[in-house]
Structure formats: C-alpha cells, structure tokens
C-alpha cells in the first residue's frame, strides 16, 4: 500500500514536485500556437529590413540592364561572372587581407587592453582614477568627425599615413571597450579574486586564471562589436589611406562608383563578397552572439 502522502490525490493543492516528476514543458507547442499581435507589426518590419539585402543579392547576380529595372525582379540567369570580374578586375584579395589584418589585430588588442584597463578602473585604487575614468567617458560623447583632423595629424606625425598601421593604432583600445569591461568587473563580486590572492596567485595570475575564464560573454560582445565596426569602417580609411593596395574592403568598394557611371552589378557583387565573412561569422556564432549581447545589456 502506498503512503497516503505519495498519492497525487492526497491534497488537491499539492504542487507537482511533491507528487511526481514535473511534466516536460512543451516549448514547440507554445511556439506554434496562435501568433502574437506583435507579429503583425514585426513581420512587415522584417520585410522592410530584408529588402535592401535581397535587392543587393538580385543586383549582384543580374546583368547591368536587368539591374536598372524597377521594381527589381529575379534575373533570367545568374551572372556568376560579376563575382569573377570583381576578383580579377580589382585588388579585391588585397582588400580582403588588409581588412582581415586590421580587424584581427584591433579585435585582439581591444580584448586584451580594454579588459586590463577595465580591471584597473574597477579594482585598483590609484590617485586620480575617478577623474581619469570620467575623462574617458567624456570621450564617448565626442563624435569621431570632431577628432578626425587631430587624429590624422597625430597619425601623420607617427609616419603612418597610407599604411595599415594608420587604421590599427588609433583603434588599439577604445573608450567604449574599457567602459564595458569596467562595468563587468564592477558587477563581479570581489570574493573570487580575494580567494585566489589568499591561495597565492599574483594580481596577473588572478586575472588570467580566475577572471579571464569568466569573461566569455563580455569579451565575445566586445570582440563582435569591435570586429563589425572595423570591418565596416569607411570614413577613417578614406582619410588615412590613398594607395589601392593598402585599402580596406569598404574603401575598395567605393572605387566601383565613378563620378559619372557606376557599375551596380559589380558594386553589389563586391559588397556581397565583402559581407560574406560577416554573415558566415554571424550564422556560425549566432547563439554566442545573441547570448553575449543579451548578457552585456547592450542592444
């Protein structure tokens, strides 16, 4: 005979946990049920956002005559030659490598330097740290266009004009990155670091062995945002780079636009190729991307 309290009927208000295993939540059912009223707003908005992308793809695989049609329509045949023309008719490979070099170096330096600086602002007590942090925050309020000329003069004094270094050095560490990492460390309870210090770890040891493994989400966010901003940057490369072989992708794309004539099929094919690494990166790391952005509180 079973114990009376083990019976699901023993009490009409017994929570499920007391009378047996919880039923598996049926998420699929919940997802396929009635659409939310928000869907009527969000679906058309999604279409609006997708339109330029679809238009870009259609143009990239069309003939110049088909590309001029409005509204755009699917081409009669796919023009793969547009892509090969971009690759052979311009130093596209150079631009790709240049952009990759600049992006990887800047992302790596930001990940290292912003997290170290953020840690220092969050944890180390030194004279003037509050003032220094305030000044850092103030630089976030200044648009890049305002500091464009001073930055150019500084980079010129370093002898880096028309050199990839001109694109790397000013972006080695960013105020936004330092601020973001500092906020992460401030929110982290100090107990872990103190425990590690008592266990015999040095400051750097604490940072590398205890904190770095916990910094996955904020570092991923920082890396993604830095990568996107560098990969898609146009204004600063336009000012700092002149030689075609030193151009980055976005700057190179502008060479497809003439003063009087633009070959839209080649321009869109090049644009699509330039965005492919970003799209591949996003699709591959979509889960990490969404989670890290969500956990960092950045929208």
């Amino acid at each position: 005979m079973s114990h009376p309290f083990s019976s699901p009927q023993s009490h009409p208000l017994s929570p499920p946990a007391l009378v047996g295993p919880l039923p598996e939540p049926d998420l699929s059912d919940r997802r396929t049920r009635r659409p939310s009223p928000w869907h009527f707003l969000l679906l058309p908005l999604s279409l609006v956002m997708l339109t330029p992308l679809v238009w870009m793809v259609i143009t990239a695989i069309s003939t110049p005559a088909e590309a001029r049609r409005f509204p755009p329509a699917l081409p009669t045949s796919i023009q793969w030659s547009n892509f090969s023309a971009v690759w052979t008719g311009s130093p596209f490979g150079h631009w790709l490598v240049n952009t990759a070099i600049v992006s990887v170096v800047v992302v790596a330096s930001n990940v290292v330097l912003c997290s170290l600086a953020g840690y220092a602002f969050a944890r180390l007590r030194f004279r003037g740290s509050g003032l220094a942090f305030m000044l850092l925050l103030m630089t976030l309020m200044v648009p890049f266009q305002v500091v464009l000329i001073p930055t150019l003069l500084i980079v010129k004094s370093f002898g880096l004009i028309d050199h990839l270094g001109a694109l790397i050095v000013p972006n080695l560490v960013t105020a936004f990155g330092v601020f973001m990492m500092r906020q992460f460390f401030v929110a982290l309870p100090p107990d872990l670091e103190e425990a590690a210090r008592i266990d015999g770890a040095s400051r750097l040891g604490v940072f590398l062995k205890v904190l770095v493994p916990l910094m996955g989400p904020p570092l991923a966010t920082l890396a993604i945002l830095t990568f996107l901003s560098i990969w898609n940057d146009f204004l600063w490369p336009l000012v700092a780079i002149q030689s075609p072989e030193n151009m980055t992708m976005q700057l190179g794309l502008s060479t497809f636009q003439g003063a009087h004539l633009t070959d839209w099929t080649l321009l869109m094919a090049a644009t699509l190729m330039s965005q492919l690494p970003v799209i591949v990166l996003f699709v591959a790391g979509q889960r990490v991307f969404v989670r890290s952005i969500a956990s960092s509180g950045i929208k």
Partner: protein
Amino acid sequence: MAPIVLDGLRKVYPGKQPVVALEGLDLTIDDGELVAFVGPSGCGKSTVLRCVAGLEKLSSGRVLIGGREVQELPPGKRDIAMVFQSYALYPHLTVYKNLAFPLRERHVPRVRRDAEVRRVAEMLELTPLLRRRPGQLSGGQRQRVAMGRALVREPMAFLLDEPLSNLDAKLRTQMRAEIAEVHRRLGITSIYVTHDQVEAMTLGERIVVMRDGRLQQAGTPAEVYENPVNLFVAGFLGTPSMNQVSGRVSRGLLVAGSLRLLVPGAPDGDVVLGVRPEGLSPASVDDDGLCLDVLVSHVEALGNENLVHARVTGAEESAKPLVFRSPPRFSPRGGDQVRVRVDPSQLLLFEQETELRVTLAGPVVAADERHVVA
C-alpha cells in the same frame, strides 16, 4: 599552526567622513585555538578577519602569525587560508581543480598535489564529487569544498567569514558539527566570524564580542555569558536576550519597579537590573521567595518548553516585557496573571550611564520581609 597576535589594530576608511572600522584591538589567539568573533552588522568583526588575511591594509597596528609580522605581506605570503561567506569557489574549475588551486599556485609537484587533494576530499567526503563543477553542487557540498580548499595546504591559520550563513537551519547545525570536528582533528589556529551567537557559543573555545570597531569582551562562552562586562554584551548574547529593568540605587537599596533589593557595594545612581530568562521561573501563589506578579501578554510554545512574554503588574505600558521559560505543562494564556520567582543569584547590575557592570560586595537579597511587592 601558530598563535596569532593582534596588536593595536586600527582601520580607518578614508573619505570626506572617515569611518573608523577598528579601534585599538589587542588580542592573542593561542596556538590551535578557535576564537569566534561575534557582534552585530558593522561592528568590525569581518574587518578584523580581512586585516589578518591581508585583504585590507591596516591604518596602524601589527599582526603576528607564528611570531612573524605579516601586516606588510600580501595575502598569499601570510600562510593563511580563508573560507568566504559566498564560498568563492572558482566556477569554471571542477571540485578537484578547486582543491588543487592553492597547491598549484605554490608549485607543489603534481604527485604530491594529487595525494593532498585526495586526502582532503576523503576527509570531507568529497571524493565522489571531484569531477563536478561548483554549479552542480548543493549548498552543503559547496561549503565542504570551500573548507577543503582552505585545508588542503595545511595553513598556519584558518579564517572563516560567516561560512554557514547561506545554509538552511538543519544543514547549518550539521556543518557546525563538521567544522568543530575538523578543528578538533587538525588543531589549526582559527578565527571564526559570525553574527550568529549560537555558532559563536558552540564553536568558539573563546568568543570575542565586538561593537563599533571595539572589542567589548573576550573569554570562554560561559564566562562571557555569565559575567558580561557591560549591558551590550549582556543583551547581545543569549536567546531570548537578557531581561532589563531600570532602577535606582540609593545607599545600597535598589528600587526597580516593584522590586526592592539590597545590593551591597553598589554606588548610588541610575542602574539597569538584568536577569536572563532562566533566572525567572513560574512560582506558586504561596511562594515566599523573591517573586514578581506579572501579566502574560503572549506565549511561544516551542514543544519542549514555552517562552512566556509578560509585563510586570503595574508597570508602565512602555516598559520592556519580561521573557521567561516555562515547562510545557505550564502554559498560561494572554491576559493571565501569574507569579514568577526571581533567582537572586542570577541578577546582574549595570550602571545606566556607562552601561558597565557593577561589581557587588555581596549577594543580592530582597529588601523587606515579605519580598513580594507587586
């Protein structure tokens, strides 16, 4: 294992309004002794621990561990281990790696490291959990891992900062016994910080009561409980806390409400008469001892005993209620008039102004023949 000497510890947090967290703390903790620091929030007990650990820099004073001055050394060089209230387990490491962390940082060879980790895991019954991460452990298991990490390298001193606060009542009792057993077995000099007086009384070989950054009293649990040096210590220790009745002494006669007592050697002036709940007991109507008539306000039935809350008959409404224990069979109801017997040997006297204990020249006795005044 080593004695710990705290010599004139002073800690001030600077700012526009500097906060004095510790003021002139002197204490010697003997080799192998477990001393429990107890006090209300903000009394400075955790600051003492953090200063000993090296997590806070002293404003002045010295800390000696095993005869060696350590106040200028970083935490890792002090040869101490600490258990945090939050346990502070490294969430990305398994239990094994958490236990091995202090040994790795001290470059202990792999074979010895492994042996030490397994020894401690065996002692704390953590062996089946070695591959798990902290997130997969219960509160009690995490607490044991934190203990293990502190014990694994056999430090000279062991610091525990409210290690049981995050556990439920049942687990806390169990872990308290385990900590006592580990300390008995290893005999490491330990400082235990808690706001829970039961923990302090049951674990500490000596307890130190702190208030506003100052040491109030240090002694064995029995000494501090039975002979508190001031009203704060008397009121802080004991559950329910000590009953306090205001009164006035004049030429050796104490008048406190309806009580008239002879208090030999007590100076004239305003005083507070203290008596613990166990100093009061239900009395029969014809009891001719020192008695009080009280009006019961409510009764807490605890099963093995009752806690009776009552007000002295005729006392002002603002007067603090008295609390006394009674056996379960004596269960009055709110509004009942009952008589309680006062044990004169358990009466303590404190100066109202300084809150210091008054040392009497002889035993307290009732002042008149009838003894019953109410």
